[in-house]
């Protein structure tokens, strides 16, 4: 569970009175920072940076990271970590590589299989966390490492190219208003998660479980079922990210997808400072990914070295979360 401290519950009238400019400023500070970056790089490089081609490229190429981030915020919301997300992504991609590119299976059944594998790994995570009552950090780390071993075994440590061009076309070559379709899949998924979190009973239950398991249990919420569902959904969405990854690269690589884990967590935590501050939220995650990629793209276009990107990435994360805390008068963080 990621809860550090429970904030003191305020009466409804007090909450209403807090609907101030300050609150709104906090909600949209990251969006403003994103716009500021766009304007800054737009002034510095009006021809190249402000082109639609640049924006369509940025939107399309980050869809995999957005989807993976959306996957991990579900267990984060219910108070659990899923460190196996990137492993599931890589496994899903490798299932496509082995069954479609190597064994020649048609792409559609292979996509179903890779989603099923993702959900199965999520279920295994849930089983060990809930039945044995082990912390999710330990279980998902262990299961993720085990899955990495299986990926190396089934791929022979080789990258497999030749994934169906149909998939490549569905992900990256097919476009709407010049933006690859992968971006719209990510956006639709974000909208579904946002709606589920805000307006459905299961979504609210997930949030309550993350805020306080015992209170939820006493109120009749099936806590274990909710947590199990969050792991399975995380596995399913991570597997979907793997499908997009394969479609993006046209290949399956046993290692490279694993590097997306930390950027996904960075985006999830940065996203929790915006739109619905203090809560992991879908559109916050989307905005944080594109805020970070805008900065990195602008810096790269200006010829910055690789280390400058790391300075920006790490620096932006810490500064944004710190500023958010200042606005909140340094209240203890309650991410769930």
């Amino acid at each position, binding site marked *: 569970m990621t809860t550090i401290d429970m904030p003191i519950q305020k009466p409804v009238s007090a909450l209403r009175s807090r609907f101030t400019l300050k609150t709104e400023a906090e909600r949209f500070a990251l969006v403003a920072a994103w716009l500021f970056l766009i304007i800054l790089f737009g002034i510095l*490089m009006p021809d*190249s*940076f402000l*082109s639609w*081609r*640049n924006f*369509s*490229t*940025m939107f*399309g*190429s*980050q869809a995999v990271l957005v989807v993976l981030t959306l996957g991990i915020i579900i267990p984060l919301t219910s108070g659990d970590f899923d460190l196996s997300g990137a492993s599931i992504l890589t496994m899903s991609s490798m299932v496509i590589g082995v069954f479609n590119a190597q064994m020649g299976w048609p792409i559609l059944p292979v996509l179903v299989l890779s989603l099923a594998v993702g959900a199965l790994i999520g279920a295994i995570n849930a089983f060990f966390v809930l039945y044995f009552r082990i912390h999710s950090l330990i279980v998902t780390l262990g299961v993720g490492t085990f899955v990495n071993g299986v990926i*190396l075994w089934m791929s*022979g*440590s*080789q*990258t*497999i*190219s*030749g994934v169906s061009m149909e998939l*490549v076309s569905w992900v*990256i*070559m097919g476009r709407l208003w010049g933006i*690859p379709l992968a971006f719209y899949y990510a956006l639709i998924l974000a909208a579904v998660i946002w709606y589920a979190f805000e307006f459905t009973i299961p979504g609210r239950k997930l949030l309550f479980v993350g805020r306080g398991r015992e209170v939820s249990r006493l109120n009749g919420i099936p806590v274990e079922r909710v947590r199990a569902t969050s792991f399975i959904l995380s596995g399913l969405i991570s597997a979907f990210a793997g499908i997009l990854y394969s479609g*993006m*690269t*046209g*290949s399956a*690589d*046993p*290692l*490279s*997808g*694993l*590097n*997306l884990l930390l*950027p996904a967590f960075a985006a999830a935590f940065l996203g929790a400072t915006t739109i619905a501050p203090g809560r992991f939220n879908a559109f916050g995650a989307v905005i944080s990914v594109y805020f970070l*990629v805008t900065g*990195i*793209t602008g810096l*790269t*276009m*200006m*010829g910055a*070295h*690789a280390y400058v*990107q790391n300075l920006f990435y790490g620096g932006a994360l810490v500064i944004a979360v710190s500023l958010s805390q200042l606005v909140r008068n340094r209240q203890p963080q309650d991410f769930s």
Partner: protein
Amino acid sequence: MRVLLLSAFVAASAIAAVPSGAHADAMADAKAILEQHKKMPVFDPPGEAFDAKSCMAGKKVLSIPISMTIPFNVELQKAMSTAAKEVGFTYTTWDNQLKTDQWIQGVSQAISQKYDVLDVAGGLNPEWLGPQLTEARSAGLKVTTTHLYDVTQKSAPTVDYSSRVDFTGAGKVLAAYAYVQTGGKPNVLIIGSSDVLPSIPFVKAIQDELKALCPECKQKHLDVPVSDWATKIQPGTQSALLADPGINYIIPIYDSMSQFVVPALRITGALGSVGVAGFNGTPFVLDMLREGQVNMDIGESLGWAGYAAIDNIMRMICGKPEVAKLNVPLLIFDKDNIKTAGVPANFNDGYGDAHLDGFRKLWKLK
């Protein structure tokens, strides 16, 4: 006299117009470089012949690759082991998964089991094992590196012999290829990884050759550490292409980078109009070449490299001088000969087997 002066002036101007190091007929020179590497490799003895069987009798060699999860290392070790078997000495590969503690265990094993040679292979930098290798040498072991340094680089002080690779030569070939394919007007994005030891001279060789062939042509270097390939090559390439739409060739120095370059080309709509050429002959990249996503890949037969590495190790034991560079020819794969690399491609097809007979004669096995 005036004619003589005028002629001298014209000649001097012509010389001045060709910058230092530039080629007089750059296109012909570039094509000549490529021709050398398009032919089926022939065996060129790296030194004098010697009786390997007798001087290697009873010797033991332990090789620690950087990681056996990398197919390149698996194939290289397989070939080294086969060569050692042919000669008839003990050769052990220390299987590991890119972990420092496993490498250290390997060194301890070599010392305790009284091996004669400790080889660090396939990218493992001896600087990372400084104290351990010093201890091994104090215990009487000889230390070698295989497929790490560029021919222009010096070995670490803890190393006796090195099988250096001609990354510089590969860099010249890549630059020449981009020059020829763009009709003498290359605008190149070079993608390197300065954290990999030979990358710096490799990239410099490409940059220098491009400058020599075409001093006014544009080139850009994108430096991405290996651990960031998956997250930074694609956006970096996209940004470079958007910032300069005139880029017409991309050289990912290690061909495995291509899997992140091709999506960048697809997403920016540049696939097909911007060429891609790299080095290593990695099978999946050769498959991409066959499918038309990559234009050229310089390959080196790992079977050949394994025999050449064993040759250098044996030369050390047998008191022969170190070879200047790993005796492995670099072969250009492009659309004309990609079918010879196998379907799916592998690390050894397409290079012929001239090395087998060549090394056997060199080692006086036949």
